[in-house]
């Protein structure tokens, strides 16, 4: 897929701290097509912000280590020198940050900040840049833009600051806009306005958007494709419909079930995900989600799952050691509103044969640089051995198939 605007391949970002090495991003791959929206969903500490900051080269530091490739229109951002990176950042790729109050400089007028963003990238006179800044404020729906240019950020309300941030990001007509939790600090009514604005701007300007959020509702509104991140990895990725209609990963189920929704019965019991997000320094062994997963089996503590396609879909991939037939039955149970115990029973009913076949598995360890083969073949064996009952023969082989980058190429 050479037509992708942005291709991230096996990106790893780690930071050396006094407490140890923080593996913030641990081998993620995704692509963004021109004019499309990718939603990255995850909790705090799942690496979603670090991965996007790395995309515009903002995590470079003596203490950080960045591996993998980030291809933006064929150029690798990871190896790019600082000067060329500066040409890309804010020009072709722009970013909107979570907290507009701390992202705008409090000492400078909003107009001056917008003009600066333009003059940094193109030869444009001050007055022309000011005219354009007013146009941009108008574009993002700020009334009386000429007067607003001379105001300071503190004179703007929260929603307007976020609009000003968007205006600044749009000032050089980026091809890719990265929005990191753009609505988290805002009220629900203003959030709806900002999301509608982003959609409208995308339709008019044709840019691609990466939207990072913890709110599944927000991505459902706006994203074409969704990647769910957990503990520095993508655990599930698929089209918006696939993620919401047939989610495959227990973590995605947990996210969907732990929030009250306006369109579900009022007395529906919330099912929280037990435990808490793992430390990125001492990560759990095997599947990183196993300490919080009600369906985890003994073998899952040792085997590290990698992204594999879900049956019958070219775009939907998941990193889960449960057999697809089991996942299907558990998800049906979840939809039918079964309680946790009976769901676990559903999952374990078909577990016994899998467990036996899983025992001779070579242990896939965390250690860096270990031979990837044993883990991969072990996984294939485990899943391949499971007699499929309710679904057509599961196809688990195409690891590393072109176009479906594997998550974990150790």
């Amino acid at each position: 897929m050479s037509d992708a605007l942005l291709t991230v391949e096996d990106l790893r970002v780690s930071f050396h701290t006094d407490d140890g090495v923080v593996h913030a991003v641990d081998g993620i791959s995704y692509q963004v097509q021109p004019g499309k929206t990718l939603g990255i969903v995850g909790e705090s500490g799942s690496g979603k912000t670090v991965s996007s900051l790395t995309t515009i080269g903002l995590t470079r530091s003596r203490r950080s280590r960045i591996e993998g490739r980030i291809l933006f229109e064929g150029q690798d951002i990871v190896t790019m020198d600082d000067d060329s990176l500066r040409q890309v950042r804010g020009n072709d790729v722009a970013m909107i940050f979570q907290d507009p109050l701390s992202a705008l400089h409090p000492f400078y007028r909003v107009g001056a900040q917008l003009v600066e963003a333009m003059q940094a990238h193109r030869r444009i006179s001050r007055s022309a840049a000011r005219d354009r800044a007013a146009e941009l404020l108008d574009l993002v729906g700020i009334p009386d833009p000429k007067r607003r240019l001379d105001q300071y950020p503190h004179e703007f309300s929260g929603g307007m600051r976020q609009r000003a941030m968007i205006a600044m990001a749009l000032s050089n007509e980026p091809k890719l806009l990265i929005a990191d939790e753009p609505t988290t600090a805002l009220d629900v009514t203003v959030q709806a306005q900002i999301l509608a604005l982003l959609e409208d701007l995308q339709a008019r300007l044709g840019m691609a958007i990466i939207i990072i959020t913890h709110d599944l509702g927000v991505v459902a509104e706006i994203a074409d494709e969704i990647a769910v991140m957990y503990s520095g990895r993508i655990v599930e990725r698929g089209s918006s419909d696939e993620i919401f209609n047939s989610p495959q990963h227990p973590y995605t189920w947990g996210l969907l079930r732990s929030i009250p929704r306006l369109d579900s019965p009022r007395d529906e019991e919330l099912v929280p995900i037990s435990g808490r997000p793992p430390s990125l320094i001492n990560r759990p062994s095997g599947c990183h989600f196993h300490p919080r997963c009600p369906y985890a089996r003994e073998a899952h503590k040792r085997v590290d799952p990698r992204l594999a396609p879900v049956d019958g879909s070219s775009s939907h991939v998941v990193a889960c050691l449960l057999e697809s037939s089991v996942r299907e039955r558990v998800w049906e149970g979840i939809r039918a509103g079964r309680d946790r115990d009976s769901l676990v029973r559903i999952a374990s009913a078909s577990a016994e044969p899998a467990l036996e076949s899983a025992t001779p598995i070579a242990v896939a360890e965390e250690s860096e640089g270990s031979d990837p083969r044993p883990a991969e073949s072990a996984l294939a064996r485990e899943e391949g051995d499971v007699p499929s009952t309710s679904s057509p023969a599961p196809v688990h082989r195409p690891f590393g198939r072109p176009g479906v980058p594997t998550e974990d190429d150790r």
Partner: protein
Amino acid sequence: MTPLIEVRDLVKHFPIKRGLIFQREVGAVKAVDGVSFDVLQGETLGIVGETGCGKSTTARLVCRLMDPTSGSITFEGRDVGAQKGDKLKALHRDMQMVFQDPYSSLNPRKTIGSIIADPFIIHGLYTGAGERKRRVQDLMDRVGLNPEHYNRYPHEFSGGQRQRIGVARAIALEPKLLVADEPVSALDVSIQAQVLNLLRDLQRDMGLTLIFIAHDLSVVRHMCDRVAVMYLGKIVEMAPSDVLYTSPRHPYTGALLAAVPVPDPTGGKRERQLLTGDVPSPANPPRACRFHTRCPKAQERCSQEEPLLEGKPGGSVAACHFPLTDDEVATRLPLALSGRSRSAEPTASAPAPVEPAN
């Protein structure tokens, strides 16, 4: 059932002052401007609204962490505003608060054990050291914390656990009323449900009455029996949860509901009616109906005559001259709410005027 707490015409104005020595008042931020409601024994009242609508101020006034400008609060027949000294202390024993930010509401220099024991010390309960420790550990166990962590400091806990500590402190005195001010908005999604379930369980086990303040309408719907919607210091609509979410009458409630993103891509790409602009300043609220500047249904009368809270068809109490009709609810909130199945929702595209986002 008798109300546990009655609030009448509660007003809180924060003066805006100018000048260094001879300060003169040049205006007032009308944070709460005439709010009345009852909370029945054992029920959960939700208060929702946007930032700056006065919901947190209302909570603080109810607990008398602030003195109101005028109005009265009656708690079990006692006038909350008139209590002083020991009587106020006794009153505070019956009403406790859980705060929004679990990071700033716990003293970082004290251990969890002493934070939770503080209410006992203040009220002189369980004076024996062994007994006090046992009580604290009981409480920790009850809110799902490991009692062995008695001697740890707040920084050693995650956000969700800190909020549990805040809850343990609030229920230590077995209060009758618990006021929870945005208890989950600072928490991660997967953790929110843990704290919500905890509050529900405690309410059931202890017979607590709960005032639950949040800006998240879906959380409020999940938790509350009745919901009051506030806008610029006033309650604009109040109704039982089922009524409010299926047949909202005030256009502001309708707009809030329409703005909630629903995690369902089929319903997500719907034509929605968005509120334009921002909330006006509470220092200088619009005349008459405060919502008329942003209201899609506003007419001449709305800027002349203030609507009063009154019963509307459907069982809701709303302050509006031109309340939403059932047809409007069906078209403006196409995503069927509460109980209505999604297949039954009208599929016609909303004929409602779609305003450009400001």
